[in-house]
């Protein structure tokens, strides 16, 4: 069909995944950590769609898994941001090092 095969897409999503892991491990700001998690979820989505396109083109299961992952990512981001804003109200900071105690 074209020269771009499944392996290209998988290497792309692998790089995106490990970029997200790097951000999650190095940054201490909760919002940036949330953004790294979004990158991880997106790389998984690319994987699902690539497998669906190249290995099971007659089926739709990869599309549905991606759709559900997007839904759950949206819910997760909303809850996480509510928690972050609540944390900011109490500690005046969104650094993970400052949030050692979960309750006051």
């Amino acid at each position, binding site marked *: 069909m074209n020269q771009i095969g499944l392996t290209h897409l998988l290497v792309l999503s692998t790089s995106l995944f490990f970029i997200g892991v790097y951000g999650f491990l190095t*940054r201490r700001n909760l919002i940036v950590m949330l953004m790294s998690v979004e990158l991880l979820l997106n790389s998984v989505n690319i994987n699902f769609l690539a497998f669906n396109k190249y290995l099971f083109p007659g089926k*739709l299961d990869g599309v549905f898994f991606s759709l559900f992952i997007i839904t759950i990512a949206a819910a997760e981001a909303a809850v996480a941001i509510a928690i972050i804003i609540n944390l900011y109200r109490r500690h005046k900071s969104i650094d993970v090092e400052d949030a050692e105690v979960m309750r006051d």
Partner: protein
Amino acid sequence: MSANSIVFYLLALLIIGGGFMAVTSRKIFRSAVYLLFSLIGIAGLYFWMHYEFLAAVQIIVYVGGIVVLIIFSIFLTQTSSLDMPRPNLSRRLFAGLAVLCGFLLTSTLLLQHTFIPSLEPEGDTSVSAIGMKMLSVGEGGYALPFEVVSILLLAAMIGCIVIAIKAPGDK
């Protein structure tokens, strides 16, 4: 090199570059904008793969929803002109090492494995086909996960309200 692969490499550059700048930029607002570029690149990749509905959902939910939410929370929680402290060297070093090892391991495995592309014809990925399958209760239908995910969204909404609500005594 066909136009198709040039488009793929441009999108890959946008995704990887945006993602990398998003996790390394020291200004949090810029970080969010780079994330926006990365997510738009991923939507473009879905268009490239002919999953138009998924691309539209990606733009609506991620670009229109999550990134805007993140930018609002940045405005609510900190002064965006302030630089974030640079992570200390040992943490960057060890994280980089771990990530490099993981990447090399995974891509070696990927490049060694030969995937056998399927020869069956491309199925129908139109919105109507996705909708019929989503609400079908028959063989391979996704009606039950659809309902479960709707309950999850309701739970997340109520949870957000409960977490974010101000107690009457709080100032």
